[in-house]
């Protein structure tokens, strides 16, 4: 038999009023009270109440389906892993709202990267009428029901202790893939939170190593994948989730992943253009000077892959290369090798930047807002200066910016500047649908990161076609990468969900590693080409597996 709790408060007050002969409500008020209660009562266990509370919000069918699934079949504990741009925040908001309407959640803790705190607060308030508050003072934990904070703040004393004393009904964690390592302080912090209902949001779950998935699931539902020992024994040899059907089925019980292709939504088109750049004589000499280090400068490399990094920097800007070289020399003790002095000389002789010139031409011809992504801070600064010389306003953007600054920069770009120059880390979580031109000034080697970049503009809400310009310098590492990743295997035209599958099927723990190996350890140009061909062939093969033998027609 189920426990029945009788609310005693009404009874007590009623008896008092009987004794004091009042005061009594009017019949109309009495009726209004009952009607209010009827409007607020939940008629069924199943179904969603939230949509009728949110008439101005039109959730997409897949978002409603996710909310329903999580509540009806997953008992309110789930990893929401839709592809970038499908609206995980909306799904999380719907679920939270539904539980709040049903009275099952009162207090909720929402942990997100610092840069996204204010965006979450705004969305919850404006789209969902959930009075979420940004944590600024320590009393907020106790006094406010729905608090948004960064994990970094939350895990620190005295916040940590106060948070542990609160009775949270729901915990939501955005960018949860950052909790893949169970040895970190963040992981431990979240593990010790009481999680009655819990949502973990991540766009990139499958590319993770298998242990990382174990850690993520164990945070949500300890034991769902067995304990550590059992898991290692059963799945330890599995390198990727997709290769083990049983494990995949288990994970899918706690994870929902929608892909663009499945949503049936009409996406605006993506036009991809390759822009090849010819180095000037000085630039070419500088590039070759870096390449020459492979044979005589190796002693200075603190990390095995520094050479690759330097080559890529040389393709980006001499400023980027300079920063790295200077750092190396600063750390270096003893005499500076000849090759490095020469390199410094070469850096000084370069007076132009062919890539930047090209970018300038393009921006001038587009006459619309443009986003430039570069991997390097120094290039970012250089570009800002360079564009300014030509009367083009730009806004720099990077991951390290504080909470409010990101929003501020976004607004600046929206209203006052033509160009937005972002470094990699700046890509996360910011939505720039008002822009439709993206220049990949230098290409990331990890295709997932590239998708994160494009996802800033090519997402729900983008009504125009999107133009992507990929820059690469001829006869450099860049061109190789471009040929392999972006032309041979048509990465750009693919839908990213497939890419996930493909990479998983390939058992590629890290595509970058293979590429670096091809570049670094090849004795000759010929050997490198062969290695690259092999990688391409593997990807194609995995692709066939992913498509069940059918060729996927690019949309």
């Amino acid at each position, binding site marked *: 038999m189920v*426990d029945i709790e009788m609310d005693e408060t009404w009874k007590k007050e009623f*008896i008092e009023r009987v004794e004091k002969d*009042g005061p009594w409500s009017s019949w109309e008020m*009495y009726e209004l009270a009952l009607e209010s209660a009827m409007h607020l009562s939940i008629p069924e266990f199943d179904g969603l109440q939230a949509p*009728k509370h949110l008439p101005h919000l039109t959730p997409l069918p897949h978002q409603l389906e996710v909310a329903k699934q999580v509540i009806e079949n997953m008992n309110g504990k789930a990893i929401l892993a839709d592809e970038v741009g499908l609206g995980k925040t909306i799904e999380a908001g719907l679920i939270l709202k539904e539980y709040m309407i049903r009275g099952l959640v009162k207090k909720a803790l929402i942990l997100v990267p610092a840069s996204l705190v204010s965006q979450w607060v705004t969305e919850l308030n404006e789209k969902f009428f959930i009075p979420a508050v940004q944590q600024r003072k320590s009393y907020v934990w106790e006094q406010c029901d729905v608090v948004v904070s960064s994990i970094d703040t939350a895990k620190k004393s005295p916040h940590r202790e106060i948070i542990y004393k609160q009775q949270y009904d729901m915990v939501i964690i955005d960018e949860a893939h950052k909790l893949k390592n169970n040895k970190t302080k963040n992981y431990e912090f979240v593990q010790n939170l009481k999680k009655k209902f819990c949502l973990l949001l991540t766009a990139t779950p499958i590319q993770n190593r298998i242990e990382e998935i174990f850690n993520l699931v164990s945070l949500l539902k300890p034991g769902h994948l067995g304990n550590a020992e059992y898991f290692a024994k059963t799945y330890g040899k599995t390198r990727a989730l997709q290769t083990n059907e049983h494990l995949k089925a288990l994970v899918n019980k706690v994870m929902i992943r929608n892909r663009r292709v499945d949503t049936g939504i009409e996406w605006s088109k993506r036009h991809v253009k390759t822009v090849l750049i010819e180095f000037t004589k000085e630039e070419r000499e500088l590039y070759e000077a870096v390449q020459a280090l492979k044979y005589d400068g190796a002693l200075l490399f603190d990390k095995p892959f520094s050479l690759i990094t330097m080559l890529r920097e040389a393709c980006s800007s001499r400023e980027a290369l300079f920063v790295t070289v200077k750092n190396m020399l600063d750390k270096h003790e003893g005499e500076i090798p000849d090759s490095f002095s020469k390199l410094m000389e070469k850096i000084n002789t370069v007076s132009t930047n062919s890539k930047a010139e090209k970018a300038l031409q393009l921006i001038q011809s587009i006459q619309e807002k443009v986003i430039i992504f570069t991997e390097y801070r120094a290039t970012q600064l250089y570009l800002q200066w360079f564009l300014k010389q030509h009367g083009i306003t730009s806004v720099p953007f990077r991951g390290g910016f504080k909470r409010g600054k990101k929003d501020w920069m976004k607004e600046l770009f929206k209203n006052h500047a033509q160009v937005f120059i972002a470094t990699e880390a700046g890509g996360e979580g910011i939505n720039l649908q008002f822009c439709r031109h993206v220049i990949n000034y230098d290409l990331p080697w990890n295709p997932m990161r590239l998708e994160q970049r494009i996802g800033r503009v090519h997402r729900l809400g983008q009504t125009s076609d999107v133009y992507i310009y990929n820059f690469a310098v001829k006869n450099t590492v860049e061109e190789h990468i471009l040929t392999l990743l972006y032309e041979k295997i048509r990465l750009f035209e693919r839908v990213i969900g497939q890419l996930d599958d493909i990479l998983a099927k390939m058992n590629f723990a890290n595509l970058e590693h293979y590429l670096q190996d091809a570049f670094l350890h090849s004795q000759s140009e010929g050997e490198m080409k062969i290695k690259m061909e092999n990688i391409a062939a593997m990807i194609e093969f995995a692709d066939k597996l992913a498509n069940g033998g059918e060729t996927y027609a690019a949309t």
Partner: protein
Amino acid sequence: MQQHEIQRFLERYFRANECDILETDDGYMKVQLSVEMDKELMNRPFYWHYIERTGGVPAPMQLTLITKQTEKTNSLEGERLHFGSPRLHQIFRSAQKRGSFIRLYEESSSCEQTHIPLHPWLGLNVKIAYQCDRKKDHILSLGLHLISGTIIEQFHDRLQKLKLVPKIPDYCFTISPLIKPTSGIGRLERYIQRRISQDDHTWAEQAKKRWAEDLALLDHFYEGMEEKPECYYIEKEALKEQYKPRIIVSVINGGLFYLHPRT
């Protein structure tokens, strides 16, 4: 709740609370709040504190509430209300607070002027919440005849058909209850409990099953550990809160009704 229902509800609410409705038309209304309603809805305690301290002239606010988009309302400054708006929910809460307790008498429709006895009834509208990791409500309206102990359901529907007044009508007299209000409430509570026990409890069985499953997983996760870490106990407690089936009975409102005897 449709937009016109919201409009109607708001008009009734403000009228019932003695606020002047200055303007009302298709899709909107303008209300002059009374001092009491300003304090109830506008959340400005400092202003009222100040006025009361300084003896200033109180100026309760006016509210423009818009329930429909029309050409007229597009040009209006005001709050747009729909079923999810915080303002409407504030008003729902206020209505429930202000309409909790009642005592009414039935006015006779016949013209006969003999002395009419009015029988005491205890009316209760209750909400039964069935809750685990899911939730459902059921509203029950009960009436208890405080003389015979008879209990009837859908009591509120019956009351709606009668003419009820706050003062005892002429030529009527009330019969004292044999059952005191406190024990009357007790009888209704027992009635509710009996009724609940006859419900279908599959939902609770299923919740317990889900609970047991997750608990087994959790135990397996920490299996073989001599001393279980604290997060084991935290998680265990969280599972209890998540799944444990409960039924919560709360009174929406209720009161005493003196009614004509009927056969």
